[in-house]
């Protein structure tokens, strides 16, 4: 098959803009909620906007919760965007505690509001390598951020963030008010990004291209 990415359709979010962005990056995609088609795909994209509980409920009702887990176990690349990133985690604390897909260990927590900070965070914010690791070369080699400038800006729109337990799984961090949160997580074949690459202009398209064509080195 020509299609490089299966975009999981479980009834939430604007998945068409993700598809249009892949189109622009030259990558054919297909939108599906079919178990077999998902498992046969070379890569899987988990989109999502809105509340965590609703996202998990829609995944459950579409019978896709275990399909996503099964796909992740095959070792083929998975990318979760925004809520899709948060769903990868162990659990969320949005409106009570709710279990997630449990593919990456960690919690989903609310952005702390201090001073005049506005939540949701809506707008462009910069990525940075964790621990300021910036000793020459590309700190993001081997990840989907490969070739993307350190301190490049991406478009965020969220009130919660994922906090992966294992520090080495935090590929990029972002600062918002007193929050320093993980904006890109990577565990083996599974990557999540809190921002919307499909709305993040050239750098966002670069990330999607990296994902679709395995351009990570």
């Amino acid at each position, binding site marked *: 098959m020509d299609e490089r990415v299966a975009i999981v359709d479980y009834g939430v979010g604007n998945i068409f803009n993700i598809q249009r962005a892949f189109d622009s990056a030259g990558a054919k995609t297909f939108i599906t909620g079919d178990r077999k088609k998902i498992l046969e795909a070379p890569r899987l994209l988990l989109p999502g906007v809105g509340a965590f509980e609703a996202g998990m409920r829609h995944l459950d009702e579409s019978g896709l919760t275990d399909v996503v887990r099964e796909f992740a176990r095959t070792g083929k690349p998975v990318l979760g965007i925004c809520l899709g990133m948060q769903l990868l985690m162990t659990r969320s604390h949005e409106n009570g505690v709710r279990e997630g897909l449990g593919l990456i260990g960690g919690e989903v927590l609310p952005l702390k509001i201090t001073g005049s900070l506005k939540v949701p965070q809506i707008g462009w914010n910069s990525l940075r390598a964790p621990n300021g690791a910036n000793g020459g070369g590309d700190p993001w080699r081997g990840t989907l951020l490969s070739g993307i400038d350190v301190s490049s*800006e991406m478009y965020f729109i969220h009130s919660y963030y994922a906090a992966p337990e294992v520090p080495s799984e935090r590929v990029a961090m972002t600062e918002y008010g007193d929050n320093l949160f993980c904006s890109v997580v990577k565990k083996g074949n599974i990557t999540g990004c809190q921002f919307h690459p499909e709305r993040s202009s050239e750098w966002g398209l670069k990330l999607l291209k990296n994902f679709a064509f395995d351009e990570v080195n």
Partner: protein
Amino acid sequence: MNRPVRVIPRLDIKGPNLVKGIQLEGNRVLGVAEQFSDIYYAEGADELIYQDVVASLYMRNSLLDVVQRTAKQIFIPLTVAGGIRSIDDIRALLRAGADKVAINTAAVENPKLLSEAAKVFGSQCIVASIEAYGHNGKYQVWVDYGRQVVDMDAIEWAKRVVDLGVGEILLTSIDREGTGRGYDLNLIEKVAAHVSVPVIACGGAGREEDFIKAVKQGAADAVSAASVFHYNYMKPVSAHTMTFNDARLRMGEPIDSGNIEFLKDGYGGFKDIMTDRLSIPAVKQAMRNAGIAVRGTRGMDHQNG
């Protein structure tokens, strides 16, 4: 402040055309909408706003085609406003490529629409559009694209829409709109400093310093402008391309493509333009010089590093 303030061109749209008026009146056609959105994307706009100027009046939604064509070309967020009355309207616009929808008239008539929409689609894509007219130190809410006043205080309404679950407020001052006299800093501050969600200031930008004041004095989280950008980037086009004699509305009326006199023979002329003509990079540079964080003017540069 470590969060960049967004600079957002606002495109008022009539049929397929970009139009611009003064105080939401006397709209003149400036060109085709997507031509401008392509330029704004390339120039480093942080988002775009599309406002359908007739939808609310005639209950029609001709915007879907324009939105769809735009979404294929630009990869920054697009907020669409005008004539949105139902959950189905919102769904159709999101499918066409809008990232957020801004609702004014229908929310004033039925505030529950905002909470329902936030529940179905998430707060992050529901924007309350508030159009206010300043009068004797009070701010009244207007609906139907500045045609109808309602007995509501804009600042009270702003607090209420946040409780109803919107993720953002688009705040337009009608009396400043198109005049280039500067944003209504008092109005912006009264809303932006007292609600928990981001506020986009709109209406009145005419000079570089207006953008800076909106952030520093008005506490705006984003600044939107139309004339300063449109008149800077507009190119001479044949007026003939702006007429749509064949196109018809559902009820069989010809589409009114708008007042093309300005394009045809420069009616009013550029002396009639009440704002400076500014590029997006120039506005961002001025803001940066004033100590305001803004995103690099192009996605691929990193001036903001």
